[in-house]
């Protein structure tokens, strides 16, 4: 991300929201996997003593955490490399551009950090409560 250049709106938007987009993808994958597995009674066997569905959710969660952590690392590194503004009042075009850079990198890092927390929360819940059992219904599709 260079200063003094016309920043691409699309790239900037994706960069800032990368963490949240990874959360969305993980959430969708978890939702679809759990819904289809429970509805169709598939993927209910166990591997290494753990149900296949929670294992797949665990894998998706770990991958998502890794990707988000990578975004977080890159954004923090870029933020640190951005020069600090000289003052907060009337500044030159270069200084304003550098302020903008820091803002973008800060947002990307903060979004990634918060998304990491959300991914962990979602993943933990889905893995901890791995039952297809519904309220009051017999446990027909309980993962082994």
């Amino acid at each position, binding site marked *: 991300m260079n200063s003094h250049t016309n920043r691409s709106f699309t790239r900037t938007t994706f960069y800032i929201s990368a963490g949240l987009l990874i959360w969305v993808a993980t959430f969708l994958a978890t939702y679809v996997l759990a819904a289809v597995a429970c509805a169709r009674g598939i993927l209910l066997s166990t591997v290494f003593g753990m149900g296949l569905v929670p294992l797949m959710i665990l894998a998706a969660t770990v991958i998502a955490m890794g990707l988000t952590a990578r975004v977080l690392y890159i954004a923090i590194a870029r933020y640190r490399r951005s020069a600090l503004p000289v003052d907060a009042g009337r500044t030159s075009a270069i200084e304003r551009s550098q302020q903008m850079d820091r803002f973008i990198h800060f947002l990307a890092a903060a979004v990634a950090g918060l998304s990491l927390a*959300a991914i962990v929360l979602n993943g933990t819940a889905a893995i901890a409560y791995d039952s297809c059992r519904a309220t009051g219904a017999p446990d027909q599709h309980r993962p082994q």
Partner: protein
Amino acid sequence: MSSLPSPLPRPPGELEELERVWKVPTGIRRLTAVNNTYIGIYYIGTALLFLVLAGVLALIMRTQLAVPENDLVSFKTYNQLFTMHGSVMMFLFAIPVIEAIAVFLLPAMLAARDLPFPRLSAFAFWAYASGGLIFFGTLFFGVAPDGGWFMYPPLTSHEFSPGLNADFWLLGIGFIEISAIAGAIELVVGTLRTRPPGMSLDKMPIYAWVMLVVGAMIVFGFPPVIAGTLLLELERAFHWPFFVAERGGDPVLWQHLFWLFGHPEVYIIFLPAAGLVSMMIPTLARTPLVGYRWIVLAVLSTAVLSFGLWAHHMFATGMPHVSSAFFSAASMAVAIPTGIQVFAWIATLWRGKLQLTAAAWFILGFFFIFVLGGLTGVMVAVIPFDWQAHDTYFVVAHLHYVLIGGMVFPLCAALYYWAPIASGKPLSERMGRWAFWLMFVGFNLAFFPMHISGLLGMPRRVYTYREGLGWEPWNLASTLGAYVLAAGFALIAIDLIKNLRIAGKVKTNPWRAGTLEWLPLDDYATRSIPLVESRDPLWDRPELSEEVERGQHFLPGTATGQRETIVTSPIEARPQYLMVLPGPSWYPMLAGVGLALFFFVLTVKLVVPAVLLAAFTLAMIFRWVWSTDRSGDLSPVAVGGGITLPVSINGPISHAWWAVFVLILVDGTIFACLVFSYFFLWTTNPQSAWPPADVELPRLAWDWIAAAMWIASSLFIAWAARAVSAKRIRVLGRFGVSLTIACGLAAAAMLTSSFALFKTGMRPSDHAYGAIVYTILVYQAFHVVVLITMAVYTLLRTYKGLLSQANRVSFDSTRLLWHYMVVQGLLAIAIASGAPRLLS
């Protein structure tokens, strides 16, 4: 841009010409006004009217429930009362008022002369106002919707609600959805492209950030309810069994579609109010906002996370534990960014010194009430607790704490804070404080006891209750509180009626605020568009106000003799071109009223009047678009600061292109919801019944032919695009012929797919499988009709010599939507033919 401020004096007649061009019509022609200030005031006033009307319904309900076994109203009337109270509050007050405030305030905050599509705002307002009044009027004829504001089937299906009541809700909400989507397009394009030069994203007011994000939320959040209302109306009108279990449907599908909209909706309602609070607190505390970047983070995160919570409204439907668990976790996760905002506000108040104006009192009230509501929200996010509290008055208490606390109190603060921008003088501080205390005490007296009556087992939506259940004192307290709350609202209404006017010229800043909406304003907005260098320009450069008013910044007059504003780049806000804006017109108003009447007449099944009204509405839209789509070459103009800008532009930089892109996102999301419905129903049907055993699939040969025709139509559109670069574009030349062939191919592709499906013998009313497949095809057919109409419009413009390389927005818009339609068509074939083969 370093040559600003420009030297004085300004050329003679410059200001007079600006005033002439932006003058608002008088008399009856005031109805044709499209200035955002006028449309904004009309919009806010209408939304507040619906608040009052829905509030009166609430008072009737509370009076009925004041004592046990009351007979003030029958159960049938009561069902209509609570349905209309919820529907009017959510659809005719809450969503419109947050959009209305943005219409009024956002251009001023961004020092833009107007929103990018003023006639679209006018159309959206008139559709909403006329449709909303008709919708409310159904109460007086006993045909108001009565299935609850979220209208769950099977209660609202044809079998159990055979009357028109549910249809009024389904079709009535249609125009609200159109209004909201139109508003979202304005918000997204306006916030990203009409900021003043220098107002890069890191200097954008928090409220503008919020409205940008909320606009995006509307784009993705409203389509599920559009899809859902379409499906339920098809079921009621034609017996397509999407929600009928005996024929492969599932009523839970409605709940998924509704709450996919419904949960983001409450954040669509809350976030703008939070944005307004973020603007008011720094001014009233006399200190810059603490944690600006953190608040931006919080707004972005809340927006996205809110799309992952919807099923927490469905914990009692029997979802698998694993699914319920991660919805519960997501519901708790969303409290983190909300907490960040609250702590940022507290830190700002801590650092500054709050002036206890009426607005400040309402903000303090918001803190107390909203935080309480948030806490009970975390309680109901805990699944076992929710199983006990579901459908009881505990939930009623929670939702009113977050909605009234989270939106209405900030709204009242905003009225007291920003009224001077409209009328040049503040409202009455004394009345404001009285109103606040009446509302605060009344609200807590009305709604806190509902937590207790709910925990004691009182269900929602009961029109009375037996004596001796222990609910009596809590209900009586709630009723008394409701009347005290109403008295508070009445005081505000009196204050507004007495003191709020639209003043033409306004030069006031009573709170000594630092943001641009407090620059001197007139019908043309600001005399010149300022160069912005910080987040609080009026604090950092107190002389800016006078410079702008003297015309020493950008665009101090009208460069083309028409209404204009500057379009800037989305991130750095560098000037890119001058956007010419349309002026007053009858057509958007007539189109809006026509559309509302069309929906109403269709609901009562008067087919011929419906057809006539549809034709009338389309004719008005045609006239509106024709007169807005400007022709003629416009040379680059000087806008001040040594900058020359082109007038209007084509291609991906143009605001029209961006608007069409946003529309495609809406369209694609609706289609995605239909695809979701297909796969959801697949999971709820036995493997052998999807498709049903007696159903034949379309022959693949027809599918391949249709797919080839879709792709070919796209290629002809691309060829027509190349022809637009020619010096002369002719109907009978390469351009016109390509466009015509593309239309023929699209029609043929649609007919081929329809024929292939029809030939299988499958009918949509037989089984949910057929219903959803036919719906996807019908949705595609609707696009074909619209796009061919747009192509014909483009050919007409060509025939009249109005289409050129420099003026090609009608073709570019058609082209973008065409390619989207082709992609959708290919996906429709994949769903109708590919999915069942793959899944089996």
